[in-house]
């Protein structure tokens, strides 16, 4: 059984990656899981300068999910290169650096600096963080801005370029199509959904930034529908993200059109979750007689003449 995933010029061992911001820089969870059992590590978002992040409180648990308002707290580009990358280079799995920025120029500068370093296999461009005032969502919710970033970055690297999309727009497939048109190798979705929680005792929002990003099992149905929608609009691979806790969840994403998945919040419950999901997917394929996992991608069995009324029409 072949579970490898071809992403542009890169071949990943399998189709399970770990999502940005939920697996640090690899070293933190190395004592708890076999890093070479997963297809790739997507790093915490890296920005040009270190970011201190938002004031507490940054986390609220909600029904089958969690809200976060971290605000892209990260060590910054220089410290990433000097203190985090050396460990990542030693790990036998694909290393995908996630980049966050507040202007096209900053995305460019970070990517060009990273291009000088060994040991990076691909980039994921975060245009979809809901928890920062500058950048993030302000790019990801404007189709032209998402296209402009992709257009600017594309000629600057031969490595696979993944654009990470937000579900907080009317029609995410338009954004995915724009990324494809501008030469992105893949799109990943979904980043977190904007949400909030209120303390009835104090009548104040629970998060310091009022709203935050919802993740976890609560968002999986939304994420599946978004991936399904995008799969009707683009030919480039889709990396499905959102509430994946088990191998069954991951197979669902493949069936609706994702070529690979990222595991996020699940790693907080179990640092070994992504590795277990990869093993479970392999076992499913063996049992079902699937020779190549690629055969599952988009393999949703829809009864004839049935369409999804909830799906906004694609281009």
């Amino acid at each position: 059984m072949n579970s490898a995933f071809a992403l542009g010029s890169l071949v990943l061992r399998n189709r399970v990656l770990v999502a940005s911001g939920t697996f640090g820089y690899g070293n933190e969870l190395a004592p708890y899981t076999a890093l070479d059992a997963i297809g790739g590590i997507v790093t915490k978002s890296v920005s040009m300068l270190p970011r201190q992040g938002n004031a507490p409180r940054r986390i609220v648990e909600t029904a089958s999910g969690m809200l976060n308002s971290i605000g892209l707290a990260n060590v910054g580009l220089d410290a990433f290169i000097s203190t985090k990358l050396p460990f990542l280079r030693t790990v036998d799995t694909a290393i995908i650096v996630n980049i966050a920025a507040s202007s096209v120029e900053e995305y460019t500068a970070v990517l060009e600096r990273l291009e000088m370093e060994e040991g990076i296999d691909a980039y994921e461009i975060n245009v979809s963080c809901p928890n920062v005032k500058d950048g993030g969502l302000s790019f990801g919710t404007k189709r032209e801005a998402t296209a402009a970033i992709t257009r600017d970055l594309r000629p600057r690297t031969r490595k696979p370029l993944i654009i990470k999309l937000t579900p907080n727009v009317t029609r995410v497939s338009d954004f995915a199509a724009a990324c494809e048109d501008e030469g992105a190798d893949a799109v990943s979705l979904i980043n977190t959904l904007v949400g909030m929680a209120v303390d009835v005792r104090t009548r104040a929002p629970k998060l310091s930034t009022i709203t935050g990003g919802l993740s976890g099992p609560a968002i999986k149905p939304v994420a599946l529908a978004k991936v399904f929608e995008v799969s009707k609009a683009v030919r480039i691979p889709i990396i499905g993200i959102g509430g994946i806790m088990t191998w069954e969840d991951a197979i669902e994403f493949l069936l609706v059109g994702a070529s690979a998945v990222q595991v996020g919040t699940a790693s907080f419950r179990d640092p070994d979750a992504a590795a277990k999901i990869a093993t479970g997917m392999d076992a499913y394929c063996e049992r079902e007689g699937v020779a190549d996992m690629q055969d599952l991608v988009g393999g949703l069995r829809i009864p004839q003449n049935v369409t999804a009324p909830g799906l906004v029409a694609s281009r």
Partner: protein
Amino acid sequence: MTAYNTDYPVISVRPVADETFALRFHAPELSAALRPGQFLNILTSELYDPLLRRPYSISNVIGEECEIIFTIVGKGTALLAEKRSGDTIGVLGPLGNTFGYEKDFGTAIIVAGGIGVAPFPFLVRELQRREKSIHTFLGARNAGRVVRDGLAGLHIATDDGSEGYHGTAVACLDAFLGTHEPDRPRIFACGPNLMLRATQELAARRGIACELSLESEMACGVGICQGCPIERTEGERKYALVCTDGPCFDSRDIIFHEHHHA
């Protein structure tokens, strides 16, 4: 680094005060690796409710067995209280730093509020091995909530005066220090943030070295999610992480804000 993510067999869950339980589980390697002040990130449910693990101080280590103590305040603790011998419990740890029990001091002054008493039986054992004198100022809502197992040099304070000093543990300590002069004291405090803030203020006013064991919402417990910041008084980084830089902090190094008392 020795670190474990393991399902351990539960040995017992026994009541130790009103609404408060001690849960003991068998974990040979983990128990040998744990030090006072550290914590464990514990799965309370096989389902996704609660979704996230809950952090608990290691309360004591007895041979190959570990004990945590908790008060029922919500879903996670209600589920922990229902565990029985023969069940298993998913534990990630050891996590966080330790109390500075190996530092140079003569008298340990422990200040504990409510379930903040949790980390102290283990600390007391290590202090006793080092022949430190110990005074423990234990604050509880009422007499029924007092957890005294494994402590030493007890001074009890209750909010309603049903046992011991009528008032807070910090006020009780302040009164004590008005009439006693302990030899080279060092304060170890754990409890609600209002109590920690009062302890921080007392330590500064009286010039006593002081460590605070903090709480915060946590998701990962290992420094990944950045969900557990506490503001630092100085330094390049504005925030420290409670899970990896703490949970024990020098009281001069951190700043409490209003939201901490909500």
